């Protein structure tokens, strides 16, 4: 338990992730990709993967390297492996984007870079998966939040496998007919496995524990929370694994998608009830900005579920799927990610800087590293911009979408600046900023202190 310490490379993952988020938002503001280009255009694939891999996956990996040990009260298997994993993932992302630009005709098509990207990304994610799985394995039976993460890691592997399949199908070709069938029509499964199985399940698992910790709320492991886990896992398994089986057997995809969606909606309703309970049962009446702003992310998830059901009922899902995916990626996952980053960066910075001086000299509080009133404005602008952009997409108003994306970029830039200020201790009053024994943290990595 005492071995749970700072993850050395988590800050590096967060920095790279934020840079990717800003890059994705700048591209959307500039009118690159959907909705200025078709949904399946290579330009759209560039933006989607900058956000899905560069931002969301790096953010989640960085967070898991720090918080999986917290979930199971055991140290991370290796504090070294995350670095080569990050290098491979960044190289793989670069190759993937270049591969898409080859498809768009922007870059020379030879040599084909998509297979190279697939191998690099698979290598990077495999290292991250190995490190997290080796950390989780000895902790069995896993507590509920960690079980969500374990299943999320399985779906990460599934997402990467499907991605590899697509990259080979688009370049070198596939010799197997069933594989070709999966590659030909499996894009929805890749999206569901990535956004739902990997990112949403992991976010749900971590949110159970972090919300309870930060709001002094009871930890939920009861029947309803277990039902969230089982229905969510079953829904995703039915959609993704059932979908792959259906495609490879030349059967229709719809039953797997519909069955999985029903279970998914049930899981989300139950999860919503759990979140409402956590907020209501919290002991800490005065909650911090991160917990306040997370409410908007949960609202975005509820709105996305309602939108999905509405679009399915109206038979308009395929024409509006872009707006739905946007709301999930930016309202739910990015909203929650930014809100929790605001807390986590300050908390980890405090530990790194003042932890060794604790008990020896007076130290500031974690709350002294941030100015919540200033950051609140930017979070509100961010959520307002996401809501506007979603409406613009639903109404197919390209200019309004680009303006909203511009506002998202501005808000994200300001939030990133707040995180850098926290890391640099800029907002800590000068008298207690660096007392004896404290050390100024490096911006892009953490240096864990061994316990004496």
């Amino acid at each position, binding site marked *: *338990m005492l071995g749970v310490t700072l993850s050395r490379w988590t800050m590096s993952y967060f920095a790279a992730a934020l840079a990717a988020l800003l890059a994705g938002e700048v591209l959307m503001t500039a009118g690159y990709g959907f909705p200025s280009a078709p949904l399946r255009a290579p330009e759209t694939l560039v933006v989607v993967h900058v956000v899905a891999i560069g931002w969301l996956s790096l953010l989640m990996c960085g967070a898991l390297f720090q918080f999986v040990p917290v979930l199971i009260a055991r140290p991370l298997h290796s504090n070294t492996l995350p670095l080569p994993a990050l290098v491979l993932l960044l190289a793989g992302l670069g190759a993937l984007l270049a591969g898409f630009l080859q498809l768009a005709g922007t870059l020379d098509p030879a040599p084909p870079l998509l297979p190279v990207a697939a191998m690099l990304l698979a290598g990077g994610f495999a290292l991250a998966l190995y490190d997290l799985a080796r950390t989780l394995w000895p902790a069995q039976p896993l507590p509920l939040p960690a079980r969500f993460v374990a299943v999320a890691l399985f779906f990460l592997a599934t997402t990467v496998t499907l991605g590899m399949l697509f990259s080979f199908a688009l370049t070198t070709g596939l010799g197997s007919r069933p594989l070709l069938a999966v590659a030909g029509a499996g894009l929805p499964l890749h999206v569901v496995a990535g956004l739902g199985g990997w990112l949403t399940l992991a976010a749900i698992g971590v949110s159970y524990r972090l919300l309870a*910790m930060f709001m002094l709320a009871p930890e939920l492991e009861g029947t309803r929370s277990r039902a969230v886990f089982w229905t969510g896992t079953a829904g995703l398994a039915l959609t993704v694994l059932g979908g792959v089986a259906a495609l490879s057997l030349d059967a229709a995809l719809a039953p797997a998608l519909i069955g999985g969606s029903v279970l998914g909606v049930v899981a989300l309703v139950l999860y919503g009830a759990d979140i409402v309970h956590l907020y209501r049962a919290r002991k800490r009446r*005065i909650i911090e900005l991160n917990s306040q702003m997370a409410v908007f992310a949960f609202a975005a998830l509820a709105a996305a579920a309602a939108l999905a059901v509405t679009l399915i009922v109206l038979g308009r899902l395929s024409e509006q799927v872009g707006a739905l995916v946007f709301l999930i990626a930016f309202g739910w996952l990015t909203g929650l990610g930014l809100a929790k980053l605001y807390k986590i960066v300050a*908390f980890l910075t405090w530990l790194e800087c003042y932890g060794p001086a604790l*008990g020896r000299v007076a130290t500031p509080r974690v709350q002294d590293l941030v100015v919540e009133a200033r950051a609140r404005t930017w979070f509100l602008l961010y959520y307002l911009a996401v809501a506007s952009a979603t409406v613009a997409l639903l109404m197919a108003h390209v200019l309004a979408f680009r303006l909203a994306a511009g506002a998202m970029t501005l808000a994200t830039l300001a939030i990133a600046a707040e995180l850098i200020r926290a890391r640099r201790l800029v907002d800590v009053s000068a008298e207690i900023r660096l007392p004896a024994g404290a050390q100024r943290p490096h911006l892009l990595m953490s240096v864990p202190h061994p316990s004496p």
Partner: protein
Amino acid sequence: MFIQTEVTSDPARMTFLPGREVLPHGTLTFDDRAAATRSPLAARLFDVRGVAALALGPDYITITKESGDWQHLKPALLGAMMEHFLSGAPVLSEPAHAAAPVSEATGKLVEEITQALRHVIDPELGYNIVDLGLIYHVDVDTDGLATVTMTTTSPGCPATGYLSDGARERAASVEGITRAEVTLTYEPRWSTDLMSDGAKAHFGIGTGRRR
């Protein structure tokens, strides 16, 4: 003798209530058999196959199993507890620091250590660890060895090591203390009920106030 059992939120743990005092003060955790040499009760319980760790509290014993089914483990554990308590053997073979008679000088040192520990703050909550209720027990022996039994708000918190180091540092800084040791325990788990009234008011607990 009737021993009640209670399931916990962790399926690998079960609490046993023997209906009599187990430890006079505080709690003790035993992570393995080697740590159980000072307690005949703990040693007897470790003889039951499948016991991974255990904790003794004022009126309870919590067992963490490493394998096996409670259905099979429970009768063996109940038998071992009955045997122990009916034999009249002590729970601890040496007097626990917590059980030692408290002289006036020791009481003063304990008070000074408690005051010193108020300089250690929980970074997340931004409040001192004494009033948060994270300090379960403070004791000083005749050689000036201070023992602080404490917990953290959440097991696995990355601040755990820093908090215990900080508490050790502050306890050792008190005049008259030659050495300080900190024991971490999660039995019982911390809850906001353990906070002082001042701390509760600070966090708006029990006031229904929302901001």
